[in-house]
């Protein structure tokens, strides 16, 4: 049995806004009966261009119904510009979270909203952009890319939970992995701000003090920072480390790993012997 939050149960058992809005300004249908999930979303704007009414019809499991109902509540009173900022994570959060295998239900809601807004603006969206990767569920490379980016996904299993891609015959699993690798390679680069050398040295000292020395001292060992040249961190072994046969392993396998994780992934630890 799925572990649903009380909010999911509430929105499933007593869903708000079931049905279709008369003379809607925005309309969208996403999913299909073959996939096991489908959602028809309609909304109407008032004279101030705010969403006054939103309704849904869902074919799908309890969390799909709850996600759609939650979405119709969330968009009420918003302008389309405000509404289009709603992400699938927002829908899941509104419901107090969804089981990870059910995240695709929130994605379905977000896709419907995006499509309904495009309809309102008169943007043609009939043609699915991108190339179909998952034949079983008709998921394109664009959709997979988006899900990976927006939710910071890192495994094929997560992609399946969010988009269903790969959940059928499994033939596309390798291609999904390629997409994950590609997207993650591009988002990786800009994350770490460039540090000045002084900042870098200060940070290394701090991490040495906080994360590394206490562990070494348990075994009677220590290290001293001699210099930092570019990405080379020059360390000298002190205390028991100086005579311990396993200390080389400690420098590379522990000290370097910690520094790379907490300071900069490019650091290389080198030992200096005086």
């Amino acid at each position: 049995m799925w572990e649903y939050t009380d909010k999911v149960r509430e929105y499933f058992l007593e869903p708000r806004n079931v049905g279709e809005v008369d003379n809607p300004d925005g309309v969208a249908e996403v999913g299909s009966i073959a996939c096991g999930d489908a959602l028809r979303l309609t909304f109407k704007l008032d004279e101030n261009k705010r969403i006054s009414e939103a309704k849904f019809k869902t074919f799908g499991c309890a969390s799909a119904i709850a996600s759609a109902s939650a979405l119709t509540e969330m968009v009420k009173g918003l302008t389309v510009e405000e509404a289009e900022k709603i992400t699938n994570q927002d829908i899941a959060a509104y419901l107090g979270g969804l089981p990870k295998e059910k995240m695709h239900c929130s994605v379905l809601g977000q896709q419907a909203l995006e499509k309904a807004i495009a309809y309102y603006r008169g943007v043609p969206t009939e043609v699915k952009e991108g190339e179909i990767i998952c034949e079983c569920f008709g998921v394109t490379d664009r959709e997979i890319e988006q899900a990976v980016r927006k939710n910071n996904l890192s495994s094929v299993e997560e992609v399946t939970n969010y988009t269903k891609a790969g959940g059928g015959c499994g033939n596309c699993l390798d291609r999904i992995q390629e997409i994950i690798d590609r997207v993650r390679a591009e988002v990786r680069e800009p994350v770490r701000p460039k540090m000045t050398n002084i900042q870098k040295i200060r940070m290394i000292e701090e991490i040495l003090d906080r994360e590394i020395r206490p562990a070494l001292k348990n075994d009677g060992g220590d290290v001293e920072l001699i210099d930092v040249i570019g990405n080379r961190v020059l360390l000298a072994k002190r205390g028991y480390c100086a005579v311990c046969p396993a200390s080389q392993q400690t420098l590379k396998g522990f000290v370097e790993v910690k520094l790379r994780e907490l300071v900069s992934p490019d650091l290389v630890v080198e030992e200096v012997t005086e």
Partner: protein
Amino acid sequence: MTTVYLDNNATTQVSAEVLAAMMPYFGRLYGNPSSMHTFGGQVGIKVREAREQVAALLGASPDEIIFTSCGTESDNTAIRSALATYPERRHIVISRVEHPAVRSLCAHLAKEGCRVTELPVDSEGRLNMEAYEKSLTPDTAIVSLMWANNETGVMFPVEKAALMAHDRGILFHTDAVQAVGKIPIDMENNAIDMLSLSGHKLHAPKGIGVFYLRRGTRFSPFMIGGHQERERRGGTENVPSIIGLGKACELAAAYMEEENTRVRQLRDKLEHELLDRIPNSRVNGDRVNRLPNTTNISFEFVEGEGILLMLDRYGICASSGSACTSGSLQPSHVLRAMGVPFTMAHGSIRFSLSIMNTEEEIDLVIETLPEIIQRLREMSPYWDSGRQACATPS
């Protein structure tokens, strides 16, 4: 709220008599049945009695009964033994609707170099006997076909299929987990070499199974260890559960007629009334060759998980073949093998009864379910068009 338990193909309640029979062996009678002393020996006598009770239900001889930990272990024992005792043969024949205990094992063996034929079934879930006959080759080590399907209750003609395998010198195993206790089985008068059953499907506890091995059949054990079960399955006996299973088998024989009369009538009533009251619904599977306790009904344009959760509010327990409940994103492999359309497969509900069910319970479902389906259909974007497309249940 009382529980209305209609999910007996998933597991059954341990009956009071079974529990009572087991209790002393958790307590003061804790001896090891293999021991030389009287304290253990008295337990050994009870294990022997249980073996006789199981044998009696199957029409088998007690020495053909091997206690295991579950149905899955028994299935593994059968198929791996055939491959071990016929090392020159690397082909296995199963059906597309087998339980994962057999299907996943065979998928695993295929990776190790075995060739696996998965026989198709028709839209009623019946085995394609022509394809079966063609699949049997000199390289075939074993045929493993389920006696009755867990999702639909449809029964395969395993006795006939076993004869066909025998004529060609091929071992035949049947996963009879769902059949034992519900229909008469007489191993003395059929050609089946190996059979698997599971205690918790017939009111014994979970964690006990049986592997039936016909006398004189080549065998290689799966669990290797001590000399228990005449060196055919190592490991200290699960004494309380073995004794419980013996009792459960004795009771199953006694209740066999009730299962096939009263329980069948309750199942039929449930099925007729639901089909009658709910448009666009249909039964999945052959209604003639079917277990007396099972019905699998599809409600078009709604999704099974929602139905189950709404039934749950009334304490009604059932299960579904929908994708959302399977955890695999695809609806049940059994319904897909039968070619059940997607509009129907996602909204399938299985009710499986037992002798413990009452007419009042069935009436509660008949009263409750039509409204639930109606509510969910009103939420479904497919319902309006569907209603026009087809107004009569097929």
